[in-house]
């Protein structure tokens, strides 16, 4: 399969080179050799086809210039073959795979965003622990930028949040894909940068995936954009035109883009450094997964179950196999030989590794982002095989259309766009009473199904996966569609006029004009510029890899990097330090517990809304989500002590969040509980606790069942002034609860500021 696929792709590329891609005949030639029925079209070609053109045209440009050849032809040819082979292995992807990836990425982004909604007020608004003014006053990092910083109140943030959801949704369905992708990347970086206390490797990987893929044409297939493009390419006014599948052709032209290379190498780098950094004793003796499973903060219920039931030898096997997989993955991803099978194997291993990880611990989007990337490199062979399989498994359908009616023809035009395999045959029945009907190939016309039943029947022939059409079976929706379609077809002349398609049967069969030289030049210019940006980002990423990873020898680390190069990486949070659970998994664990007293004397933990408990090592973990898990971990560290006053304000606003005045907190102690993870088989050591902040005096505090260890309160190192204009904390800030927008202290005597002149 691999060899055949190679030759197919080779033929296609060679065809393009031999003829250029300026006219339709090129596509004919190239697609005749293609294994699929799909064929590339000139008009659908985007910048990536442009690169093929460039390769093809380069020699001719030289000959026009009349420059003497400085190297012999065989050498040039060899270099060209080498370049082509490299491009095929490391820079070529299939547009259908890009379409698939866009659906996966869109889903991932939407799920990642929506999971934050329950914690939106706590972590992203001024009602939470980190008001935007303090995040800007004491930024946790240099070069930190977030559009979320401009939004203060829960209402304002929710407005932005739903705009954010809408942008992701548009990317998901592929409407104005490139614009929405750029906006998605900006918003993703923004929401990560709003509060980087919760940032982890998953956030960074998701950003990397979104930013690198921004340069790929994700909207060429399986998108609203591609549907609209196809509808514009040909206006079929008759059933004959509908049955002509030569135009518009489905876009299968391979994409050659440096961003694909960047993604491949990025993933190889991630696995490589994650593997080589794992050189601590637990990874060597195989107990790493044991320690990993003792992390009560982030353990999932399944992980909690498995740690009590899996024998140590199995855990050791899991540790070593995880390490082995991480070691082998870079080679599989980057191997130049048998690369298709190798990448398939790599994807399988990645799925096994990350599904295993994600089932046991909550790391946010990390595992899913890691798994999603490989979908970009699903080879064209897969789509060919899928198409062949579809042709075998799917049944054919005949669609009866009243070819004198524009509405029926328009419906036919839409159906044609979903019929990638050509299994639908349109039949012209002028004056057909039902307007539109569907029947199996051998059935008689009298048995034709109309309305939603017809559409359901049609899904057996369309190339779109059938589950996509589930909504045709939903009560209510299906009834609505059925009613609308039946009514529209009954009075289809009027309906056609309303929709502006009544004259369609009388119009000429119009095909969009070919791309002009100017349009092509503009496209190539845009493509060239985008490749330059990718190359620059790759340079910045490489320098960051050298700086951040311990395994890189000091001699290779850049001594001085210009500020702008660093800013290029830090602003979008495209960090490159890969040492997850390395050199060894954490051998301690903990949680934050607040022992608060309400005004009616109850003890409550405002973080959970339940009575506080000092329970250590619960059977199935603390059931924290990733956001709270990372927040608690970092908030316990001394370096984030400067943010504790914000937490205090947040806790004291508990009654505002619950809406119950009796929940007003009069005193609290916020404890960080800490416990060493014992070696396998050893008893649990005595846990310790550290008071992070207090407010008032907590009478009858919650009893601590273990002896006090007297662990000192961590001292805060000075926080680096990351931003010009930020003042060092010379004087304590007033309580932000008093000073938030609209608060009493900052209302002028005369009310809000007004024009004074």
């Amino acid at each position, binding site marked *: 399969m691999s060899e055949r696929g190679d030759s197919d792709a080779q033929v296609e590329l060679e065809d393009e080179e031999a003829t250029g891609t300026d006219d339709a005949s090129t596509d004919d030639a190239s697609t005749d050799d293609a294994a699929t029925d799909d064929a590339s079209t000139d008009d659908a070609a985007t910048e990536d086809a442009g690169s093929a053109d460039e390769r093809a045209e380069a020699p001719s440009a030289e000959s026009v210039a009349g420059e003497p050849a400085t190297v012999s032809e065989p050498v040039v040819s060899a270099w060209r073959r080498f370049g082509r082979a490299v491009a095929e292995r490391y820079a070529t992807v299939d547009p259908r795979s890009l379409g698939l990836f866009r659906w996966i990425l869109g889903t991932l982004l939407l799920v990642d965003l929506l999971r934050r909604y329950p914690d939106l007020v706590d972590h992203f608004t*001024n009602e939470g622990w980190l*008001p*935007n*003014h*303090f*995040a*800007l*006053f004491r930024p946790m990092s240099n070069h930190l*930028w*977030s*559009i*979320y*910083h*401009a*939004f*203060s109140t829960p209402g*304002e943030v929710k407005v932005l949040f739903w705009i954010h959801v809408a942008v992701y949704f548009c990317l998901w369905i592929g409407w104005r894909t490139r614009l929405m992708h750029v906006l998605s990347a900006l918003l993703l970086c923004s929401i990560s940068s709003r509060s980087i206390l919760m940032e982890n490797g998953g956030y960074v990987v998701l950003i990397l995936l979104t930013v690198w893929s921004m340069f790929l044409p994700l909207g060429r297939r399986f998108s609203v954009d591609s549907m609209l493009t196809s509808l514009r390419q040909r206006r079929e006014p008759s059933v004959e035109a509908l049955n002509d599948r030569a135009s518009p052709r489905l876009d299968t032209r391979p994409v050659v883009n440096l961003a694909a290379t960047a993604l491949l190498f990025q993933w190889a780098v991630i696995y490589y450094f994650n593997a080589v950094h794992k050189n601590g004793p637990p990874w060597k003796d195989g107990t790493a997964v044991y320690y990993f499973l003792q992390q009560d903060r982030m353990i999932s219920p399944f992980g909690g179950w498995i740690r009590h039931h899996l024998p140590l030898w199995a855990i050791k096997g899991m540790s070593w196999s995880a390490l082995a997989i991480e070691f082998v993955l870079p080679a599989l991803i980057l191997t130049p030989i048998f690369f298709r099978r190798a990448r398939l194997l790599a994807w399988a291993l990645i799925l096994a590794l990350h599904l295993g990880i994600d089932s046991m611990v909550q790391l946010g989007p990390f595992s899913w982002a890691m798994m999603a990337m490989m979908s970009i490199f699903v080879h064209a062979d897969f789509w060919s095989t899928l198409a062949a399989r579809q042709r075998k498994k799917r049944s054919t359908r005949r669609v009866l259309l009243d070819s004198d009616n524009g509405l029926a023809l328009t419906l036919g035009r839409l159906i044609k766009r979903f019929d990638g395999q050509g299994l639908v045959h349109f039949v012209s029945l002028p004056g057909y009473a039902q307007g539109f009907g569907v029947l199996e190939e051998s059935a008689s016309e009298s048995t034709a199904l109309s309305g939603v039943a017809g559409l359901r029947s049609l899904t057996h022939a369309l190339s779109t996966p059938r589950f996509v059409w589930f909504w045709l079976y939903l009560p209510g929706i299906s009834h609505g569609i059925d009613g609308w379609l039946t009514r529209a077809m009954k009075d289809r002349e009027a309906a056609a*006029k*309303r*929709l*502006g*398609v*009544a*004259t*369609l049967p009388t*119009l*000429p069969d*119009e*095909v969009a*004009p*070919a*791309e*002009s*030289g*100017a*349009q092509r*030049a503009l496209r190539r210019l845009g493509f060239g510029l985008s490749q330059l940006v990718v190359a620059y980002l790759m340079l910045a990423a490489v320098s960051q890899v050298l700086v951040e990873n311990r395994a890189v020898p000091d001699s290779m680390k850049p001594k001085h990097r210009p500020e702008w190069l660093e800013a290029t990486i830090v602003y979008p949070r495209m960090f490159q330090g890969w040492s997850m659970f390395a050199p060894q998994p954490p051998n301690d664990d903990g949680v934050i517990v607040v022992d608060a007293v309400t005004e009616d004397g109850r003890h409550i933990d405002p973080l959970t809304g339940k009575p506080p408990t000092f329970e250590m090592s619960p059977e199935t973990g603390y059931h924290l989500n990733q956001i709270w898990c990372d927040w608690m971990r970092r908030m316990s560290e001394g370096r984030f002590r400067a943010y504790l006053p914000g937490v205090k304000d947040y806790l004291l606003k508990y009654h505002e969040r619950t809406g119950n005045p009796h929940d007003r907190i009069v005193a609290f102690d916020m404890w960080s509980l800490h416990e060493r993870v014992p070696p396998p088989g050893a008893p649990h050591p005595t846990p310790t606790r550290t008071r992070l902040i207090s407010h008032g005096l907590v009478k009858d505090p919650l009893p601590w069942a273990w002896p006090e260890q007297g662990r000192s309160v961590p001292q805060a190192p000075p926080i680096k002034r990351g*931003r*010009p*204009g*930020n*003042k060092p904390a010379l004087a304590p*800030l007033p309580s*932000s609860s008093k*000073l938030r*927008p*609209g608060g009493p*202290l*900052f*209302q*002028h*005597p005369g*009310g*809000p*500021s*007004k*024009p*004074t*002149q």
Partner: protein
Amino acid sequence: MTDSTDRDSDAPSEDRDLDDAESVADAKAARASEPGDAPVRRKKRRKKRPKDAAASHEDDSPTDEAGHTDVAESAGSEAKLDKKKEASPGWFAEHYLKADPRWLGVFRIVLGVILCVDLLRRWANAGAFYTNDGIYPNHYSLFAPMGRHVFSIYHAFSSYGEVSVAFGITLCVFLCFLFGYRTKLFHVLSAICITSLNARNLFVENGGTVVVNIITIWTLFLPLGNRLSLDAVRKSMKRFKERSAAELNDRSADEGIDLPVYRLAIFALILQWSVIYFFNTVHKSGHGWQDGSALHWFVYQDRIITAFGVWVRNNVPFGVLRFLTYATLVVEGTLAGILLIPFGQKWFRRLAFVLAFGLHGNIAAMSRLGPFSYVMVSFFVLMLGGADWAAVGRYFGKEKRRRTVIYDADCGICLLTCRILKRLDPFQRLTFVENWDLEKLPEGLDPAVTEQSVVAVMPDGSYRTESNAVFEIIRALPFGIALVWWLKVPPFSSLGMWLYRKIASNRIQISVWLGLGACGVARHAAANVPDEPKPWRESLSRFGGALRELGTLFLLVILGSQVMVDNSWVTSKIRIKRPQWVEELVDYPRLYQGWRMFAPEPPYDDGTVVVDARTVDGRKIDPLTGKEPDFNPDTPTGWGHNQFWCDYENKIRFGGNAHHRKNLEDYLMKYSERTGNPKDKIVAFDVWWIEDKSPPPGQKHGIPRRPQKLISHGVVKDSLATPWLKQGGP
């Protein structure tokens, strides 16, 4: 050949409002109101309309403008048109809702220029006022906002680099709005940007910035992009694909697009401006206004006075200033009511324009109040109508501006250029002739010349070729000279000629490259296949129009309530209580309605901030000026501050803003970073507010007052303020 079916079907909702006769129904009244040659010209054009085009109007689908007018059938059908003519928009609509799309286009350009200039002057002061290096860092603006419900996108940007990126993007947004590219989208974005810019630093907010917010938001409800915009050109190019000189010279297809539109927002704007002038008049009840000395005090405001203002105070007798004071009151009072007069509107509104121009022109010439004067005058552009356009047309359409353009009919790029020129020629000064039409060539012109160059035939029969022809053709367009002046200035003229010849000699290849028709190369097929009308879009447009008018009405009510809250003239009589969300709707976009500029009294005193600082090498310096501190509040030439520093200094002195002075301290301490000279490092300073009582009429020098210390840093020895702390100054 184009036809109206094509036109109607293709129209996006916004544009259809013009094309159809939401306003065709009002054509009769509109034409009656247009003086001069406008109705005559239209009549002549109708006669010239080809039969097939007229016939095609029969198929026009009904379209409609929601909100005010009845559904109007397409302009092509005479029977339907007559029917529409019978339907009057109503007396009220005709008098208070009507706007001319051409003047809406002019207004968009004026507002776009104001926004761009406003942004550029902010950019020039960005370091001090919009970054964390300045006097009001974003975190402090969010931590201690100066008003309720303050929201600004620019709060997200901290460093000068970040702010510059944000301002660069904002400039692009404003430019797109100015040129009318995707006008509605960029109008909305412009409104968000300008209100955000104003909200980022409320120290520099004044009446002018509020008026900019108000006019930008009210005009969101108007179709500003239907004329004189890239959108209009693109739409027209898409609809009408001329392929011959006859089609280029046929202007009848554009007939409907200049018909007036009727929007509630026009009435809202009239009310808004009347309210501004009314309250600014009635609030001016102080002695200074009653005894006619207000303007005298005004010109002694050294904070805001310009060089012209200084000249006025030194040379204009008090009697004249007293007259001008009363004239100001009279003009403001007149402007408060003149726009609402229901009769003689053409002349009253022209008079209003002249009065506003005189009033605000003088204010702008004498003081620095930011965009106030300019934006106040810009509104009156909206009040102009078809008659005024015709008057302007008489100037731009002078006979001597007429040109006949002879172009290469086989050249696609030449035809495309002519099609664009046609759309940039609103006064129809250009006539197009194909080069093979020998009968129409002027005497003495060798036809071979037309194969090599475009030819511009002047009204006197002489002709120009090559870049000289380009110069004459573009110059005939309104303000075209701004684009081509360089073609007459050596050595640019040689460059222009070289460029022209390069393009002309390669015009066939360029045409092919652009995908245009050229000699032997087929043009795009089916270029003129008309699209079918899409009633569902029109229904959507009707629905959108209804929502738009409801939105206008809603905003009118909200701002009406704000007028009743913000103006003491009303609050002394009526007090209303409003829900929180109403206040939010006003606060967020900062659409305040308190109008009392220089009222009830003109300011009788004046002052500025002086910093008495010591550098590390012992020099005395004022970091705000870079010079030695000057405590003398009496200045013969004004302080020379721009509006930002003027407003900031005036506000920071008040006790209510004392907590903001820490930021000023930080800003001053960074003086050496700004100059790049380590010796400028400040070791100590005192910040003083110095002021004087302005001199009464007949005197030239004010009476200094005791300086007031605002903040200190370190210990300033031998303070320069010491002599001024004694009563009466040194």
